[in-house]
C-alpha cells in the first residue's frame, strides 16, 4: 500500500510542473494591484512560477526609476491596492534570473555580520537585528547597491558565545572574504570579534555591544555606533541621583553586559555617595522569589535598577510585582525588551510605573528615515516598534555601505578612512566619529572614545498608560529630551 502512495506521489510531482509549465503565458504588461493580490500570486498567474516574483519587483523598480507612475517595491511581501506594477515577459524574467545568478557568482560585494540566533544567545535580539539587516540590505540593493554592484550580506549565528564568535568571524573574513563587518549583539561576542577583525585588518561597525573595552582597545578597524555601558550607566545614575535615594539595589545578569555595567554603575554611585548593592543572577534564572524576599526584608532599596536583559528581566519584574515589591511599590528602572511583549501588561499590571533607559531619539524627534524604517520594521516583524538594537543594526549596515561607496574601493584602509570621516544620517539620527587617527582621543577622555559615536541619545522613559503605544512614551529624563513628568508609585 505504501508503495502505491509513494508511486502516486512521484507521478504527481512529475506531472505538476509539466502542467504548470504548460499554463498560458502572457506578454509583458502593466498591471494595477487589486485587493488580495500578492506578488507571488501574480508571478504564478502570469509567469507560471510562484518563485518568479523577484523579477516583477526588479522590473517594476526599473520602470519606477524612469517613470514614477510605477510603484517602487521595497519589500516584496508588501504591495498595495492601486499600485501600478510591471509584469515582465517570461523571457525577461528568465533573463533577470540568469543575470542575478551571474551577479551572485561574480559581481557582488560581501558584507559580513553575526547575531545571536540560538541559545545561549539572546534570540529575541538576534532575530530583530536580522530583520533590520534584511531591510537595510534590500534598500541598499534597491538603491543600486555599492560601487555599482549588489551587496551580499553573509549573516552567521554567534550563539552569544565568544569562542563561537572567533570562529564565525574567521569564517566571514577568510572563507567568505567579506570586505567589512557590521555586527554583534552580545558584548562578549563583540570583544572576541574585534580581535579577529584586528588580526585580519577588516573594518567592523559595532551595533548594540555596549562594553567599553570594544572601542577602548583603540584598534583602527573598530567603530561603534551604539552607546558605551558607561554612557548608559551615566544616564541611569544621573537620573537616579535626581530622586535622592540613600540605597539602590542593582539587579544584574552574570554576563559580558551585566558584569561591567554593574561595575561602572556602582562606581558612579560611589562617586556620588549613594550606597548600592548588586545582585547577580544567571541569564535564564526562573525563580527570583528568594532574592526578592531578601530585598524586601533587608534594607529596603529606594530604587531598583534592573540590568537584566530579555525574558530574565521579565521574570524578575513579574515576580517582584507578584511579591508586592514591583513597580507600584518602589521606583524601578525596568528592562525594555519585556515591555515589548504583549503579556507584560497582564503579568505586571503596574508596568506603567516602570522606567526604561531608551537608546535612540525619542519618538517625537524621529527623522523621516527613522519613521520609514520603523514602518517597514513593524510590518516585517509584527513587533510594536523598532528596538534600539534593530535601529543600530539597520544603521550599521547602511553606514558600512555608505563608507564603501565613499571609499570608492573595497580596500580596508580606504574603508576605514571613509568611516573616520563619515557623516551619516540614519534611523538613529546623525552619526559621526569624533576621535580617530586624525583627531586622537584627548587625555581627559577615556580610551573608549576612539571611533565611538559620542552623542547617542540615551533617555529615561515611561509608559504612562497601561498598554500605551510606543509612540506616546513619555521622556522623563534628561531635560534636553523631556516631554513630561514621571509618575511615582502611589501617585
Amino acid at each position, binding site marked *: 500500500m505504501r508503495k502505491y502512495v509513494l508511486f502516486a506521489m512521484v507521478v504527481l510531482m512529475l506531472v505538476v510542473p509539466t502542467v504548470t509549465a504548460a499554463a498560458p503565458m502572457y506578454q509583458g504588461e502593466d498591471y494595477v494591484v487589486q485587493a488580495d493580490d500578492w506578488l507571488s500570486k501574480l508571478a504564478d498567474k502570469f509567469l507560471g512560477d510562484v518563485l518568479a516574483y523577484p523579477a516583477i519587483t526588479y522590473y517594476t523598480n526599473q520602470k519606477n526609476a524612469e517613470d514614477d507612475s510605477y510603484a517602487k517595491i521595497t519589500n516584496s511581501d508588501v504591495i498595495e491596492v492601486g499600485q501600478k506594477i510591471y509584469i515582465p515577459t517570461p523571457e525577461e524574467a528568465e533573463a533577470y534570473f540568469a543575470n542575478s545568478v551571474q551577479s551572485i557568482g561574480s559581481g557582488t560585494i560581501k558584507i559580513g555580520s553575526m547575531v545571536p540566533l*540560538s*541559545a*545561549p544567545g539572546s*534570540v*529575541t535580539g538576534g*532575530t530583530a537585528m536580522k530583520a533590520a539587516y534584511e531591510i537595510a540590505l534590500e534598500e541598499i540593493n534597491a538603491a543600486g547597491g555599492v560601487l555599482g554592484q549588489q551587496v551580499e550580506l553573509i549573516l552567521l549565528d554567534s550563539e552569544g558565545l565568544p569562542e563561537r564568535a572567533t570562529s564565525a568571524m574567521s569564517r566571514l573574513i577568510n572563507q567568505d572574504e567579506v570586505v567589512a563587518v557590521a555586527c554583534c549583539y552580545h558584548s562578549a561576542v563583540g570583544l572576541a570579534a574585534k580581535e579577529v577583525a584586528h588580526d585580519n585588518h577588516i573594518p567592523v561597525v559595532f551595533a548594540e555591544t555596549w562594553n567599553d573595552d570594544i572601542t577602548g582597545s583603540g584598534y583602527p578597524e573598530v567603530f561603534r555606533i551604539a552607546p558605551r555601558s558607561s554612557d548608559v550607566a551615566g544616564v541611569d545614575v544621573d537620573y537616579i541621583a535626581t530622586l535622592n535615594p540613600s*540605597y539602590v539595589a542593582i539587579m544584574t545578569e*552574570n554576563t559580558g553586559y551585566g558584569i561591567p555595567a554593574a*561595575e561602572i554603575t*556602582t562606581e558612579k554611585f*560611589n562617586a556620588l555617595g549613594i*550606597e*548600592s*548593592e*548588586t*545582585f*547577580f*543572577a*544567571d541569564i*535564564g*534564572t*526562573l*525563580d*527570583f*522569589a*528568594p*532574592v526578592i*524576599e*531578601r530585598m524586601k*526584608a*533587608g*534594607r529596603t532599596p529606594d530604587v531598583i535598577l534592573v540590568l537584566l536583559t*530579555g*525574558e530574565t528581566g*521579565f*521574570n524578575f519584574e513579574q*515576580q517582584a510585582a*507578584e*511579591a*508586592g515589591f514591583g513597580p507600584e511599590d518602589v521606583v524601578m528602572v525596568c528592562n525594555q525588551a519585556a515591555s515589548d*511583549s504583549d*503579556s507584560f501588561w*497582564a*503579568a505586571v499590571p503596574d508596568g506603567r510605573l516602570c522606567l526604561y533607559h531608551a537608546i535612540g531619539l525619542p519618538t517625537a524627534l524621529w527623522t523621516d528615515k527613522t519613521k520609514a524604517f520603523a514602518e517597514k520594521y513593524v510590518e516585517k516583524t509584527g513587533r510594536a516598534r523598532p528596538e534600539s538594537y534593530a535601529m543600530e543594526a539597520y544603521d550599521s549596515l547602511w553606514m558600512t555601505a555608505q563608507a564603501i561607496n565613499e571609499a570608492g574601493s573595497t580596500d580596508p584602509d580606504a574603508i576605514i578612512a571613509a568611516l573616520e570621516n563619515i557623516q551619516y544620517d540614519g534611523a538613529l539620527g546623525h552619526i559621526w566619529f569624533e576621535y580617530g587617527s586624525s583627531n586622537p582621543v584627548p587625555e581627559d577622555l577615556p580610551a573608549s572614545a576612539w571611533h565611538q559615536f559620542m552623542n547617542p541619545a540615551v533617555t529615561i522613559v515611561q509608559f504612562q498608560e497601561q498598554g500605551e503605544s510606543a509612540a506616546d512614551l513619555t521622556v522623563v529624563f534628561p531635560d534636553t529630551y523631556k516631554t513630561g513628568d514621571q509618575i511615582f508609585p502611589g501617585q
Partner: protein
Amino acid sequence: MHASPLLQTFNTGPALLILLWVIFWAVVGGVVTPRVYRRKDLDASSATLYGAVAGAGTGPILPVYLWVKTPELNWRWIVVPSALTLAMLIWAFAVYDPNNLCVNNGGYVISQISNGLLVGVLYGLIALGLTLIFSILGIVSFAHGQFYMIGGYVAFFVVDDVFGLNLNPLLGLLAAGLVTMAIGIVFERLLLRPMHLGQIERPSEYAILVTFGLAFFLTYTVQATIGTNPRKLTPYFPIDTVTIGPVSMPPSRVIGAAIGLVVLAILYWFLNYTWRGKALRAVSQDKQAAAVVGINPLTMNTLAFGMGAMLAGIAGAALVQVFTWAPNVGDVASARSFVVIVLGGMGSLIGAMVGGLVIGVVEALGVGCFPDVSRALAYQQVFGLVIFAIVLLLKPTGLFGREL
C-alpha cells in the same frame, strides 16, 4: 573587586572554632566507636556513622556514653544527635554572620520556607513522572525535562491566541498530557522495548544514551520549528496574591501548586484503585511474579513511560503560566528532577513530593541565607546539587527508596 557599601562583617574566627569542634568530635566518634563495638564483639556495621553524628552533635558526651554502655544502635541514637548537629552548624553560621536576615528575622525565615515549599510542590510535580518511570522500567529518563518543555508549549498554544485557539486552561492541561503521552509511548515502543526484549547490549548505558539522544532531538526540533523566542502565559485563573501573615504567595504559583496536588491525588487514586494502576505497582514490586499472574510487563513498561511523559507534560502545562518558556527550560527541569528523585528515593512517588519540598526549601534558604548577597542567586541550583551529590555518595536509595 565589588566592595559592598553595606559593610558585611564576618566573625570567621569564632565560627571556625565551633566548626573545628564539631569536626574534631565527629572524627573521634567516627573512628573510635566502631573499634569499641568491634572489640566488644558487637555489630559495628553502622557504628562509624552513629559515632560520627554523636560526636558532631554532642561533643564528647554521647560518644563516651556509647563507648561505655555500647547500646544497640537503632534510630534513637541518630535522630537527636542529627538535630543537635544541625543546631551546632546553625549556631556556627549565626556566629559567622550575625547580621544575616536568617539569623535575626524569624518572619523572613518563615516566608522563605513557605516560598520554598510552594515552589517545592512544583518541583515535586515535575519529578513525579520520572520516579514513576524509574519504578517500572528501572531507568532514568534523561529526556524528562523535554517532555515537560513540550507540555508547556502545547498548553501555551492551546490556551494562548497565537493560533486563535484561546481555549480553556483545563483543555490545555489535557492536550499537553495527551501529546506528551503519545510521544512517550511511541518512543518507548520503538526504542526502549528492544532493551527489555534483550536485543540490546549494555542496557543500562543504552537507556541513558538513548533517552539523552531523545532529549537532544526534542529540544532542537522544538527550537528549529518554533524558535527560541521566550513565551509567557498569564495566570490561568484570575486570583489574587494569597497573603497569610508575613507570607505572600503569587497567584500563578498557587495555581501551579494546586494543579500539582490534584494530579498527585489522581495518580494516587489511579495506582491504588484501578486494575491497571495496581498492575503497575505489582510490576514495580516484582516483575516475574506479575508476569506469572498474567500481567504483561512490556505493556506496563509502555504504559508507565507514557504516563511518566504525560505527568511531565502536565507539569509543564501547569508551570508555563509561572515561568517564561523557551526550548531550553527542559534542561534545568531535568536536572532538578534528578536531584528531587534521588533525594526522595528513586521510584518512590511520595519521595518525589517530599524531595521536591526539601529541595524547594533548601534552595530558598540557600539563596536567602547565603552570606554574600550578590552571589546568592547565582548559587541557587548549587545548593540542591550539593545535597544531591552527597545523597548519591552516602545513601543512593534516598529518603524513601528501597534497595534495588
